């Protein structure tokens, strides 16, 4: 795209950038939330970042929404839904809702939003999540039918995963405009976005649902964790997330703020290259994988390094996900057995492993836990060398290419879908971008699990799948993460179990 930037335009940009940013908000009507990194776009389906999802919740609505207390999916822009047959869902829409630009919300907006994401030429990041939907048909202004490619049991969960855009905006404005100007139906509107610095939201007084208490929300980008905590305890920021467990005492002792934690869906593990995507490596042998699992004392690490803030998992299926098998017990540290297994596998004198690691983006205390794991593995004969890749985007790209092995950090947020399929498919199925495991038996189970709408049958299938994954020691299993939030004492706020912060639920604390 050729564009000539005139001197005048450049100068005015310079001047604009230099204007003071003090706005008309007062302290009482403004809630300040800190993020470690900024979003790349205000068009959530076009971004892989969790921050984009979180911000999306404020300006947009989804068809369905999760009730944080019961963790069940309830109505939002959709009021009711049912299956017509195995491959068709009918959804009734809420009436009387308006977009921020004044246009009314009807079925055409739902159709436009979904078709846009499903369109392969648009290359939206979220396409894979909704690919089971073949088409969207308008029945009338407030009724929509979704045709799916075979039975789609996750449909209800996934209704919480796509924001509804204004069809008018999508039709009239170019793609680049949509990246910076979100037109949704949500509780807040975007006033201003200073990249990498802050966003300013203002309350939508015509909102169809419960109106947020705070008139303004300032989302400040503060990359340095120590600075975030300093801001929290000096009153500059009200809510911060991803507080490292080691820093909780600073906040709790400050008298200005407190910490709150909640188990979240995100589960951590170390992926082992069983599928040999990166070439032959020791982890193609099940005994080596089992030895790795047996070498690590994960319970001690959770206790001492995470200060107890982790929930040990037998596999990578999180206790909060549908299909989790509570009867399966995790590996317990057994160094003797680990050494024996290694010797049986042909490594009586130990084995050298390269471990690809990254910066702490979503997993708290990842460097400390990595060091502890490496130290434990050394006791069983694994000589692990850490290869630190300073940028998460680069690391993820390499993993996608198949260059992540033989061992690397991985955690999965399930896209906030509380279902075992949401991790088994992407992280364990043979051939998927982020899966380094290949087992036909498992693939068959995954397929079976998502091909029926019978929840009882699905649960049985998933119990079998977890036993397989455990016995085969597919990866080095760790734990379900616990999110830790820092909350100012002037605010009342609950730590969200789905990792999505909702500023519109925050209220001032009563004295």
């Amino acid at each position: 795209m050729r564009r000539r930037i005139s001197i005048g335009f450049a100068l005015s940009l310079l001047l604009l950038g230099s204007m003071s940013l003090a706005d008309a908000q007062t302290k009482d009507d403004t809630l300040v939330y800190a993020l470690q990194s900024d979003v790349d776009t205000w068009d959530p389906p076009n971004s892989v970042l969790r921050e984009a999802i979180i911000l999306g919740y404020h300006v947009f609505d989804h068809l369905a929404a999760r009730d944080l207390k019961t963790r069940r999916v309830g109505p939002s822009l959709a009021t009711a839904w049912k299956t017509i047959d195995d491959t068709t869902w009918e959804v009734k829409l809420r009436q009387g809702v308006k977009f921020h630009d004044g246009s009314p919300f009807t079925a055409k907006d739902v159709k436009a939003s979904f078709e846009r994401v499903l369109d392969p030429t648009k290359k939206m990041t979220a396409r894979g999540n909704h690919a089971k939907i073949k088409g969207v048909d308008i029945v009338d202004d407030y009724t929509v039918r979704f045709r799916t490619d075979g039975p789609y049991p996750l449909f209800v969960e996934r209704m919480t995963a796509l924001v509804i855009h204004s069809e008018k905006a999508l039709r009239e404005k170019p793609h680049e405009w949509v990246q910076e100007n979100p037109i949704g139906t949500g509780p807040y509107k975007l006033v201003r976005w200073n990249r990498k610095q802050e966003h300013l939201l203002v309350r939508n007084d015509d909102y169809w649902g419960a109106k947020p208490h705070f008139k303004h929300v300032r989302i400040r980008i503060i990359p340095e964790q120590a600075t975030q905590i300093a801001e929290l305890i000096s009153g500059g920021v009200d809510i911060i997330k991803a507080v490292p467990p080691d820093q909780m005492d600073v906040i709790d002792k400050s008298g200005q703020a407190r910490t709150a934690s909640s188990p979240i869906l995100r589960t951590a593990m170390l992926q082992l290259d069983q599928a040999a995507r990166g070439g032959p490596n020791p982890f193609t042998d099940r005994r080596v994988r089992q030895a790795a699992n047996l070498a690590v004392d994960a319970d001690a690490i959770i206790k001492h390094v995470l200060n107890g803030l982790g929930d040990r998992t037998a596999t990578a299926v999180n206790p909060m996900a549908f299909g989790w098998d509570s009867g399966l017990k995790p590996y317990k540290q057994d160094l003797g057995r680990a050494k024996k297994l290694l010797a049986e596998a042909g490594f009586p004198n130990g084995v050298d492993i390269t471990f690809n690691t990254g910066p702490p983006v979503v997993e708290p205390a990842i460097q400390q836990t990595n060091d502890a794991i490496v130290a434990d593995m050394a006791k069983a004969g694994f000589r692990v060398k850490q290869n630190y890749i300073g940028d998460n985007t680069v690391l993820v790209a390499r993993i996608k290419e198949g260059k992540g092995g033989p061992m690397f950090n991985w955690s999965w947020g399930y896209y906030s879908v509380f279902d075992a399929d949401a991790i088994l498919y992407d992280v364990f199925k043979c051939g998927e971008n982020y899966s380094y495991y290949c087992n036909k038996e498992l693939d068959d189970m995954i397929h079976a699990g998502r091909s029926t709408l019978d929840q009882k049958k699905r649960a049985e299938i998933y119990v079998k799948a977890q036993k397989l994954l455990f016995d085969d020691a597919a990866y080095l299993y760790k734990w379900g993460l616990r999110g830790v939030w820092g909350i100012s004492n002037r605010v009342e706020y609950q730590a969200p179990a789905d990792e999505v912060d909702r500023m519109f639920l925050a209220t001032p604390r009563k004295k």
Partner: protein
Amino acid sequence: MKTVTASTDVALGAKTVAPAPRRSRIPLRRLWRFKWGVAAGAVMLLVVASAVCAPWIAPYSPVTVDIQHRLGPPAWMEGGTRAHLLGTDQIGRDLLSRVIYGGRVSLLIGTAAVLVSSGIGVLLGLAAGYFAGRIDWTIMTLVNVMLTFPFVLLALAVIAVLGPSLVNMIIVLGVADWPLYARVIRAETMAIREREFVLAGRALGMSHVRIIFNQILPNLVSVIVVIATLQVARVIILESFLSFLGLGVQPPTPAWGNMLGEGRVYMLNSWWIATFPGLAIFITTLTINLMGNALRDWLDPHMKV
């Protein structure tokens, strides 16, 4: 009589022309005048000695993990023990041992990088100053480009390609700093080039190489030594800066820079993890600077570096 040199080179310390002093006998009793420098030198000797003797004086191995005793405070604070004089870090490694071993890496990188950069810089500076003309113009343009080009970007780019390792760090730091030497050496060379003994040498038919290395270079030794000494301090700081960005020496190998980086989140409660390596950098850099000052004054009080 003064030679006119460009203002920038004046600021960087080119000498005004004075007759080259005889360097064969520098009175040792002048050393007393530089007691601060000597004291600094003694401290520096201690630092170097502890780095060299690390395996014998460090109480623990720097990489032994002990998560039961992580985040232990220094011995004189509540909760500290004499077993860990400076406390433990975030996975229980003894901080004192890590600081001692870290000195090895930092000093090694500092010395090696300075050798590389002074080697390149002196050679190019000599060439630019002696041959002048187009060679001079080319080299000085390169110098200006390098000086304007932000070091950080260069480091990021290079290490992103080559990967972070000790050798790559030395290469990057060495390559980043040579322009400084080149500029100063060039100015000095130009000044000396016009002097009688050089002209005489040329008249006698000495080759360029001989003139450069036999006549010009010996007069520059003191300048080079002083700048190089000061640069060691600067390189140590740059190393800590690169480690802060995650590009430096990789953990678990202790280097003062990466220890700082690992400890930065803990500044608010377990402050000792970052503070002691920081203190080590501080003391080392300070003493090197004082030593460098004294060295400069001892070798040639008229030097303006």
